[in-house]
């Protein structure tokens, strides 16, 4: 049973959140609803009309589409690559930072700098630095006698380059989260383990890793969710190319909508991507509630 005071509190609460909820509804709720609705029609930018209801046809076409399959594969390898690399570097740096006492704040600020930059800016800067003839990176390589590298022009190189730039940009996210987890670990079990004869590596394996498990899982999940949606860097640096070497799903959807002008199918693709991300977020939510 609700008392009158509780009811009044609740009304007041709704009143306070109403403007925010309305705004969210307008800029997020409505577009999602519109996109899902549109995905059920043969709706193109050449003929924008809801005359032709096609049901789930757009989804069926998308799932059978070879190009989409390729984009999904590229996205999968991209996500796997950046998460593995960022996690490995991130954990290593977090462990090192956790055992430093002096200058920790300074390292922290330096590491946070890339994270504070807009991805578009990051893309632009690196595109300049990596320019095959005018870029400073190739110039510096030339000074030590290494040939110019075609960073973004070659399919394999382009994929690796995009991964590396993303790592440069986002690795601090891992560092910061893992470091927070590490510094919250109790100190005593380590001393107990040391007396029991555990080496540094054994302590890491038997104590740090198991105790960090919840933090690791959450960090990885968050990073994967964000990585799947990667768009800006691709748009700025490669436009999915060369060929379709870096054609991530979000960029593929963009092309379907605004190059192919097939909005109905693009919306269906977006719906599929949304489903994956919502499922992962739900799982993340469950994991976080358990720990």
């Amino acid at each position, binding site marked *: 049973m609700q008392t009158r005071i509780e009811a009044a509190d609740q009304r007041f609460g709704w009143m306070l959140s109403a403007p925010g909820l309305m705004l969210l509804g307008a800029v997020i709720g409505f577009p999602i609803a519109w996109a899902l609705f549109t995905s059920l029609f043969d709706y193109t930018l050449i003929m924008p009309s809801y005359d032709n209801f096609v049901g789930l046809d757009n989804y069926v076409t998308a799932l059978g589409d070879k190009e989409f399959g390729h984009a999904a594969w590229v996205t999968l390898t991209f996500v796997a690559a950046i998460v593995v690399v960022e996690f490995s570097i991130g954990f290593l740096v977090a462990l090192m930072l956790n055992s430093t006492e002096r200058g920790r704040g300074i390292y922290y600020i330096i590491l946070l700098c890339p994270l504070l930059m807009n991805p578009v800016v990051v893309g632009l800067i690196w595109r300049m630095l990596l320019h095959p003839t005018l870029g400073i990176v190739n110039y510096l390589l030339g000074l030590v006698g290494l040939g110019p590298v075609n960073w973004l022009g070659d399919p394999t190189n382009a994929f690796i380059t995009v991964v590396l730039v993303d790592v440069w940009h986002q690795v601090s996210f891992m560092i910061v989260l893992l470091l927070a987890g590490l510094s919250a670990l109790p100190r005593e079990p380590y*001393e107990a383990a040391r007396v029991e004869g555990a080496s540094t590596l054994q302590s890491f394996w038997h104590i740090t890793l198991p105790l960090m498990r919840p933090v690791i899982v959450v960090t990885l999940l968050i990073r994967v969710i964000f990585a799947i949606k990667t768009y800006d860097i691709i748009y700025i640096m490669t436009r999915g190319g060369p060929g379709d070497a870096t054609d991530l799903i979000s960029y593929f959807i963009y092309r379907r909508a605004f190059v192919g002008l097939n909005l109905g199918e693009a919306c269906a693709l977006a719906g599929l991507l949304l489903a994956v991300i919502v499922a992962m977020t739900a799982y993340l939510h469950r994991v976080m509630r358990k720990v």
Partner: protein
Amino acid sequence: MASIELRSVSKAYDGGVHAVRDIDLSIADGEFMIFLGPSGCGKSTTLRMIAGLETATAGDILIGGERVNDLDPAKRDISIVFQNYALFPHMSVRKNLSFGLRLKGTPRAEIERRIGHVSKMMGIDELLDRRPSQLSGGQRQRVALGRALVREPQAFLLDEPLSNLDAKLRAVMRTELIKLHQRLGTTMVHVTHDQVEAMTMGERICIMKDGEVVQVGAPLEVYTNPADTFVAGFLATPSMNLMPARLEADGDGLAIHLAAGTIAVPEPFRAAYAPYAGQAIIAGMRPEDFHEKPAEAGPFGQLVETTIETVEALGPETILTLSQPGGTAFAARVSAAGTSRAGDKIRLTYDAGKLHLFDPRTTKRIARPLSV
């Protein structure tokens, strides 16, 4: 089993804190030694240096006669029980107990045997599959002790292992630790800031203050002959009454002039105290040396007449706070039978044969013949 020896051991932390200063101490093989002192006096630091978790800045640490300063903690073959237990939170009790043995590659059958033995001894055999978070404070304590036991080390170091337990459980564990020591006969160093624990448990007490050892001795010896005013004031509740006084010649004897009156110095002490005649001293009188019946006070009983300020009836006994006009109040421990009330006048007999005098400049006890 092994003896432990500290030779001029000091420890200065990075921040410049001198936690331990020039400690000399030798703990015999199989001895139950207590480190007693107020919080921050360097007990844990000393223990951690023995364990190898801190390095000594100066001096030598010997275990079993061998210098271990540069030896890894794991190789010193000692177990340490931490104040907050430091169990591995993600491991079951069984895994906690077997951790060290597993690292050493002890055969599984042997591990099982030892765990079975120790868990029965500590009464935790029902809890082996639980996590530490599913245990009560007392059970965690037992697991922590069990983990120290399974390794069958040469010595146990216990850092305030009972301080997180409630009063009743603490008393139980105290007895159990004593029994455990009797059964194993292994060297044990037990750190505490609780003087009752120290008095009841140890074979010897090492009393520390500001990083230095003040006095080492058997509980009763330390109690009856405290080395200085710090020890006198630290042991027992209520502790020894320390009263500023003057020592004056009185005919061919000596008398102590307190605010409340004078007390004649017993004949056997005269020679020892004579050099201090005419000087300010601190008189140390234990509350339990005041008696209601003059006969109980022995041959050197002296009458003291004062007014009762407060009465604390503890059940088996009563603590009286007695006023001393012009001086600080002092405590007396009397039998519970009395009907004394605050404000009453009271006559007690003080057993001056138990009297101690301290030098106010050095705070050290002035030496006198010990037994009278």
